[in-house]
C-alpha cells in the first residue's frame, strides 16, 4: 500500500503522507456527556434554577402595560455613547432596586404576527436600562407616592424598606409613555409564571 510500511505486524504511515484521523468512540465519549449536560442546563434554565444572560440587538417596538409598579430608584445619570456612523449621542441610565411589577402584559408585532406575554408578577433585585429618547408621555393617575427612607420633613416615621433610596409607588395609574431603550440589564430577574401566545389572530396589549 502506498505511503505505508509494515513494521513488526503493524502498519506505520510513511512520513509526509500520514494523516490524522478521528476516533469516533472518543468523539462520542465527550459529545454525549456534553449534550446531556446541555439538556440539563436547558431544563434548569427553563425552570428558573439557572439564570441565563442575554443581550439582544435591533429595534423592536413593544407595547407594555401593567396594573402596579414599585421600585427603589437608586440613580439616574446621563451617559454618552458613539454610534456606528460616528455620531455621539446621550442616553439616560436609570438604575432601580427592588423592582416589582404586577399584571404585566408585553406584546410585540413581527410582521403580521403578534407575540404577547402575560405574567402576574415580575421582580428584579436590580434593573438598569438606558433611555435613548423619550418620544411621548401621558399620565392619568390615581396614586403616586415618593417616600424617602431617611425620614420625612415633618419627622414622621416612614415605611420604606430600602434605606437610603427614595421609594416610588404607583397605583391605579394609566401611563402612556413611548421611549427607546438602548440596553437593559437585570439582576435576579424573576418571572412568577407566565403565559405566552403568538400568531396572526393575537391581540396586542392595547
Amino acid at each position: 500500500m502506498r505511503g505505508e510500511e509494515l513494521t513488526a505486524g503493524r502498519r506505520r504511515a510513511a512520513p509526509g503522507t500520514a494523516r490524522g484521523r478521528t476516533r469516533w468512540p472518543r468523539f462520542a465519549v465527550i459529545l454525549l456527556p456534553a449534550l446531556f449536560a446541555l439538556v440539563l442546563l436547558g431544563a434548569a434554565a427553563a425552570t428558573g434554577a439557572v439564570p441565563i444572560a442575554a443581550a439582544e440587538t435591533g429595534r423592536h417596538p413593544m407595547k407594555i402595560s401593567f396594573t402596579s409598579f414599585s421600585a427603589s430608584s437608586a440613580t439616574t445619570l446621563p451617559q454618552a455613547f458613539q454610534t456606528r456612523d460616528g455620531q455621539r449621542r446621550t442616553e439616560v441610565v436609570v438604575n432601580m432596586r427592588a423592582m416589582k411589577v404586577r399584571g404585566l402584559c408585553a406584546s410585540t408585532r413581527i410582521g403580521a404576527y403578534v407575540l404577547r406575554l402575560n405574567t402576574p408578577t415580575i421582580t428584579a433585585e436590580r434593573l438598569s436600562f438606558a433611555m435613548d429618547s423619550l418620544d411621548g408621555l401621558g399620565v392619568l393617575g390615581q396614586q403616586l407616592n415618593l417616600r424617602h427612607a431617611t425620614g420625612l420633613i415633618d419627622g414622621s416615621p416612614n415605611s420604606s424598606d430600602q434605606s437610603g433610596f427614595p421609594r416610588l409607588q404607583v397605583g391605579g395609574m394609566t401611563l402612556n409613555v413611548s421611549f427607546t431603550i438602548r440596553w437593559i440589564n437585570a439582576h435576579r430577574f424573576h418571572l412568577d409564571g407566565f403565559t405566552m401566545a403568538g400568531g396572526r389572530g393575537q391581540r396586542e396589549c392595547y
Partner: protein
Amino acid sequence: MTPPLPVDPDSAAEPGHPARLAELRAWTGQRPWLGGTLTVLAGLTIVLLPAQGFSVVLLPGVAGLSGFVIGGLITACGLFLLFSPQLHGLIGIAAVLLSLVSFVTTNLGGLVIGMLLGIIGGSLGFAWSPPDTEIR
C-alpha cells in the same frame, strides 16, 4: 507553531492534482482542521452577536462582556487546534466546556448555533489522533 510540513512528492506529481492542493491536503492531515474550523466559527458566532450595532460597546455587567470573553476564548481554542495540534486533547475539552458555559452567559451560546458548533468542534478536536499513531 508547527514546522513546515513535508509534502508527498508522489501526490504532487500526479496529473490533475495541483501542488497547492497537495500542500493543503498535507496541512489538513496534520491537524484537526474540521474541529478547529468549527470551533473558530463557534467563537466568532458568539462574539459577533453582541458586537452588532455598536462601535463603542458600553454594555454593563456580565451580560455585555461575557460574549466577548467566552467567544474570544473559544476562538482561541479553535486557533490552538489548528496551529498547535499536539494540544488537541486539552484544548478540545476546554472548547466543549466553554461552549457549555456560553449557554448561560452569552445569549444562549450565540443563539444555540455557536454553542453547538463549539461542542461538535471541541469533540472533534479531542477525538482527533495525530498521524504518527500506530495503526492496527
